């Protein structure tokens, strides 16, 4: 990926919509009407597939344990959502809230530091030449191909040796490393941060880190938001790493906590309802975030794929 081939990156602003052009009123003929019915029909069927489980959990979260197994999953029966939520939040002295907080710490803290560290490295690779730069970059890129789960076991053994296993650090530290983030930042910085601007700042006597922090970071913001979102969702959804690292339930993220309830539900059936309710509570805020932040996902994804 030579820098000369990189086109100016799209910003987070919605790109000019080429689609509008194609939507110009054409005479509605039988064939366009038919293709519209077919296309929208196909889209709608797919939407049912993706939304059905979401609908199911919404319904299930309002049910008592008895109704969960005794009534149709597709319709409400004696809704008691608030009681259920209260149970979820107060069970075992409110450990659910603790898990939520842990997830926020792991995902929020991890993603924030990962983004900053990736931005520095990507900027360094894009704007400074040094011997072996491409080799370093290729080594980092190769990291994208390593299955994270293959790293988790040896990491656990290493961190046990230094007594860091079963601590916040054991989940947080490995989550900070994002080779994909460095890759995105390098491409974005190379294309979007003008060298003239950096040169001008240098002539004004600004130090290199200061130029990075005040000039480059601001220009790189759209890419940074994308990396933050990716890393946040990645850490939030991660299961294998915390499973391997943590044994103290007080340190669990939500994924691990809910699974521990689910595993015991065979013996303690009311845990089924708690699992369903807890899953519902954890899924809602993330889904809202997905919808609200969608434009950032797209802008960054173009970066990742078009130039890949």
């Amino acid at each position, binding site marked *: 990926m030579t820098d000369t081939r990189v086109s100016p990156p799209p910003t987070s602003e919605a790109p000019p919509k080429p689609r509008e052009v194609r939507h110009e009123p054409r005479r509605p003929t039988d064939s366009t009407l038919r293709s519209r019915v077919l296309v929208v029909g196909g*889209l709608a069927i797919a939407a049912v597939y993706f939304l059905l489980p979401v609908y199911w959990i919404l319904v299930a979260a309002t049910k008592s344990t008895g109704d969960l197994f005794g009534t149709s999953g597709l319709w409400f029966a004696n809704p008691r959502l608030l009681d259920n939520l209260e149970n979820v939040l107060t069970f075992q002295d409110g450990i659910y809230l603790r898990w939520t907080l842990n997830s926020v710490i792991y995902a929020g803290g991890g993603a924030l530091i990962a983004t900053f560290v990736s931005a520095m490295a990507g900027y360094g690779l894009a704007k400074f030449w040094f011997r072996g730069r491409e080799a370093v970059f290729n080594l980092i890129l190769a990291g994208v191909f390593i299955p994270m789960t*293959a790293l988790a076991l040896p990491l656990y053994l290493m961190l046990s040796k230094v007594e860091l296993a079963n601590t916040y650090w054991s989940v947080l530290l490995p989550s900070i490393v994002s080779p994909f983030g460095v890759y995105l930042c390098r491409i974005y910085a190379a294309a979007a941060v003008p060298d003239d601007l950096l040169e001008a700042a240098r002539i004004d006597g600004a130090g290199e880190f200061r130029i990075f922090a005040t000039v480059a970071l601001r220009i790189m913001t759209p890419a940074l938001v994308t990396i933050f979102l990716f890393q946040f969702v990645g850490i939030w959804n991660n299961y294998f790493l915390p499973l391997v690292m943590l044994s103290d339930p007080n340190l669990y993220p939500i994924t691990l906590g809910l699974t521990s309830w689910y595993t015991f539900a065979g013996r303690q059936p009311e845990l089924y309802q708690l699992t369903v309710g807890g899953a519902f509570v954890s899924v809602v805020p993330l889904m809202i975030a997905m919808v609200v932040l*969608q434009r950032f996902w797209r802008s960054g994804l173009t970066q990742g794929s078009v130039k890949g």
Partner: protein
Amino acid sequence: MRRHDARTAAGFLAPFGILFALFFLLPIVYAIYQSLFTIERTGALGLGGEEQVFAGFDNYVDALQEPGFVDSLGRVVVFAAIQVPVMIVFALVLALLLETASARGVPFFRTAYFLPFGVPGVIASILWGFLYVPGVSPIVGALDQVGIHVDFLGGDTVLLSIVNIVTWEFVGYNMLVLVAQLQSIDPNLYEAARVDGASGWHIVRHIKLPMVRPAIVLTTVFTIIGTLQLFAEPLILKPVSTSISSHYTPNMAAYNEAFSNNNYHLAAAEAVLLALVAMVLSFGFLRLIGRGGDRR
């Protein structure tokens, strides 16, 4: 112009470099190292204590001679062979449908497809688990009523049920990558093609598909790597399906080896083997499509 300044570059690269070395490179080296040793018990009946001794490739031989592990490797390769085409074709169809002129309600549909990406794999598996279990599942119930009896959790079907969960989780994400690339195509190309008399299908076949090729390659590689790591989905379905053993996938086998059998050395060998298979398959794929295609 770029500053030829290795020291400044090193300063910017240091934080990531140190973390990358500690949490990426070192674990790989450590896993390889661990996989070359084994624990030997000394004294009568092995009561004299434990000692770590060099074992060469014994752990690898053990791993590959253990039918459970080899089966699990074969299983995820079969899984990938089904999952990757299903995932990519489904994502591609959705992306193309969303980007046709006939589509309506595009923002709603796009969001609906992308939503599951925000649901953790374990929670998606718990959800679908309920939708697979007879007695709870409205799907199984509805099918029963029309005389179709399916066992989503049986020996022949459970792998496909896992394919369904993974598809549900990640199709929307892959679709978004493809949509992003489709939107970067110059619309004048379509106009020119239409003037030349190209039909909608021709435009898909000769403009859209070749133009999204890099995105297809990217999503395919990530899907290959993701499928080989299969862990959470079968683990969550295990209590409700008798067809899933504790060695169902290589990751489950390695996890089990490490934490149930306390054999870290064998587990390390299994982790290394899995990483190797992942790299061979993903680079093999890149190689395969690299001929004449878009090269970095």
